[in-house]
């Protein structure tokens, strides 16, 4: 498989209309190789013949259930599985994910959401090296370029090293760039679960980080404070 859209996808659902619609959605979004099965027996047969690279599974099937089918499939392969079911109880969701499913979507669903989640699984499973492109470890904030791998900030004045905690904070903010990251999530990323009484220390680390990545640390434009909630790393142009 050279590209995401070349992935062989097996859709298993007892409802022919749903299978038809899923095929239609995926085909329209560019996926090229799709097979369908409406019961466990056909699904097992298709699995052997077709060797899919991703299985979208319904739970309630006429001759068995999706959980058992997934156990059978996983016995011989590590194929990623996405559950797509009308069962919305937490127990079903937890059971599916607990068995090792890669995702669980409840019906009805947004076609775009299904495609995004499905693509994310495929990328994670088959294109993980592509995700870690060198470009993604470079963070450009105005005149400052942060090299996340080496933990340094490059600017007109030269290179400034980041401390381990500053780097951890920056990585967390970068993963959620454009979104507010709470004090708790940041403290958790730096100090782990027992992060109580670190609020002031966090402020100190943020101030030092600003001194390294902001032109004017007193009037930050990249790393902003959201009062009462946390911090936000502004998205670039």
């Amino acid at each position, binding site marked *: 498989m050279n590209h995401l859209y070349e992935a062989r996808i097996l859709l298993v659902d007892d409802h022919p209309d*749903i299978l038809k619609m899923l095929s239609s*959605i995926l085909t329209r979004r560019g996926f090229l190789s799709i097979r369908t099965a409406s019961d466990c027996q056909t699904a097992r047969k298709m699995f052997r013949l077709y060797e899919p690279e991703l299985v979208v599974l319904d739970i309630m099937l006429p001759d068995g259930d999706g959980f058992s089918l997934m156990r059978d499939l996983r016995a011989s392969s590590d194929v990623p599985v996405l559950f797509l079911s009308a*069962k919305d109880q937490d127990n079903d969701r937890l059971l599916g994910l607990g068995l090792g499913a890669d995702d669980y979507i409840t019906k009805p*669903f947004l076609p*775009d959401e299904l495609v995004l989640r499905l693509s994310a699984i495929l990328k994670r499973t088959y294109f993980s090296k592509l995700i870690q492109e060198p470009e993604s470890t470079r963070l450009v904030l105005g005149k400052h370029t942060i090299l996340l791998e080496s933990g340094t900030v490059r600017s007109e004045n030269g290179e400034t090293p980041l401390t381990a905690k500053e780097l951890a904070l920056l990585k967390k903010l970068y993963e959620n760039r454009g*979104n*507010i990251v709470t004090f708790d999530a940041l403290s958790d990323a730096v100090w782990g679960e027992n992060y109580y009484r670190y609020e002031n220390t966090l402020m100190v680390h943020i101030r030092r980080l600003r001194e390294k990545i902001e032109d004017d640390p007193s009037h930050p434009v990249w790393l902003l404070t959201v009062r009462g*909630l946390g911090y936000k790393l502004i998205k670039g142009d």
Partner: protein
Amino acid sequence: MKNLSKIISRYLLSAFLVLLFTLFLNIVLYIVLGFQFFRSADHTFSYSAMIEQELSAADGQILLSETGYDCLNSHYVWAMVLDDSGNIAWNWNLPAHLSHPYTPRQIAAFSKWYLDDYPVTERITDQGLLVLAQEKYTVWKKNIYNSVGVVTFLIHMVPVTLFTNLFLLFLMVFFFGLRFYRSLKILADGIRNLSEQKPIRLPEKGMTELLARQLNHTSDLLIRQREQLNRRDDARTAWISGVSHDIRTPLSLIMGYAGNLKEDPSLSEEQRHLAGLMEAQSLQIKHLIEDLNLTSRLEYHMQPLRSAPFKPSALLRELISHMYNCGISKDHAIDLYIEQEVEQMTMTGDSALLSRAFSNLIGNSIRHNPDGCTITVTACLTPKGICFQAADDGTGIPDIIIRSLTGQLLDMEKAPHIMGLRIAMQIFSAHGWEMVFTDKNTIHIFGDSTSS
């Protein structure tokens, strides 16, 4: 149980007071009767003394005045005076068989006992020994002799006996009270268990047999009613769950194809917009189904709480940040104020459900104030526990909705179909928390401090 102890201690106190009152009554009765007795005894003594005074001697003859004879007629049947030799010196109505000289032995005998069954009283006068007889079988006569030691012992024994008896009586009252308490305790435990909806099977014996039988019967009835209610609730929840499950497949098709049409370049802009509307409305129906399922499960206690420790401050920050990150309009603002004490606090609860509840409260303010408003969420610690406040400066919640949610709306047909606030209320209630509508713009949530 405190009530039962109170009842029993009151019973013991009452019994003790009744005992004291009876004792007091007895003492009073004995004093009155004794006084009466001594008064009557004194009369007998005074009659004989009067006759003695009315006796006189003239020319060797013994005489009795008229008053003396009147007294004799009234109180005695015969009388005589014996001289020092035992001969009869004077007599009045003396039966013939008693009219003879008396030896010292005979005199000593009748002075202690009776004379021919006549109770006689003797008085030593100047004229001789005056013997006065009353009607046979009217007076009990007995000379009592005893040592001073025995009499002293008897006098001392009176209070000892009295107090021993009192103590024994009190012990018996206490023993019966205890037995009564034990019987009642079983009943009280049974009633308490009933009030806590626990089934009971009390022993049907002893003095509380009838009451125990009736309580057992009541318990059986309550269990049966509860089972019926549970079956009905289960059926209702299963029905809602089944219907919502059945709706999901056709709704998936509508949403899926609407999503496809929305992206179809062969359609016009207007047609794609309409397809987008269909998709958005289908999503709305999906959320309604989820809310309906959740509210039904919460209503009938079928939603399991995944309780785990969580920080309320972190939960609120995460929720509000998520709302900002998902995008709220510029006209809306959510301010969060958390007291320092709450920052350190860890509570136990289903954080996903609680987050949903707070999200519903904030979402409700945003939805009903499309022109914008500022929502203020605060968390502070009170002596009773944690207190959250969600307030906005918008239009506020209509009175009919508050009355409907707080059960004050009598005509339920007029009740508005409000899901978000109801679910929030149910989630807080499932945690033992209380949601209070302070005014139309302010909601307070009081959490139990024991869960912290």
